[in-house]
């Protein structure tokens, strides 16, 4: 009763951000798999490729400080909106690329590349 059909896809690499974010694992599920909350508890966390802030906002309640950075200005705007709505005060979001991070040396205890690299 099963088969697989092969589709022709012309636009490789196209992303669907809304789906990509809402249909990913929940932050605490991911965190549990990575070893639990102790990984980020009381730590300074950088979420690279933060998108709409799904993961950054999820770990913000545990971390001391969370920074999210993403090259997509629309995604960063969404992250800021989501952060305000959630009343999160220790998370900040900015537009930027991983190759040029606007932070001093040794500024973070944890850097997360979740579905980014």
């Amino acid at each position, binding site marked *: *009763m*099963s088969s697989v059909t*092969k*589709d022709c*896809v012309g636009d490789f690499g196209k992303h669907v951000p809304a789906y990509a974010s809402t249909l990913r694992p929940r932050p605490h599920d*991911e965190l549990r798999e990575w070893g639990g909350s102790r990984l980020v508890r009381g730590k300074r966390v950088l979420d690279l490729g933060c998108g709409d802030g799904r993961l950054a906002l999820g770990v913000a309640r545990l971390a001391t400080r969370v920074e999210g950075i993403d090259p997509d200005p629309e995604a960063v705007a969404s992250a800021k909106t989501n952060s305000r709505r959630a009343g999160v005060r220790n998370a900040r979001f900015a537009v930027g690329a991983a190759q040029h991070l606007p932070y001093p040396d040794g*500024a*973070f205890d944890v850097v997360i*590349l979740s*579905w980014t690299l």
Partner: protein
Amino acid sequence: MVDALVEIHRVLAPGGVLVDARPDSRVPAYAERRKPRGFQRFGIVKTSRLELANDRASDRAIARAVRDELFKRRRRGRFWHLVPFSDLAELRKYLREHLRFVHRAEWVVDAATRKRHSNDQFVIRRAVRYELLEACPPDS
């Protein structure tokens, strides 16, 4: 990618942790229908060739960062993530729009059966792999 890893190493405190988590493209995803007990698998969803190449490039970048002693491998693993869909139409829309996938699942049953189950819950079961890497001191 290697440039990004060098930059990540710079902003991480010595002993800090880099978490690299992403879909495991080496393992196919599965399309399944939720039954009263468990799931019925009805298709395999494979990753596009371009995405596979990107994933291999990411693996090589990590391997190089480890070889260059920027990071030490600490722990790695894999888990399964269920992407839920409220019905068959929603699953199809996702597969149509998600261009990471190329081989699309098709549920081959007669029209009456498909109609009977069209409001069932469907899932894509995807493998997600992760690795925790520890930042080595800059002068090590």
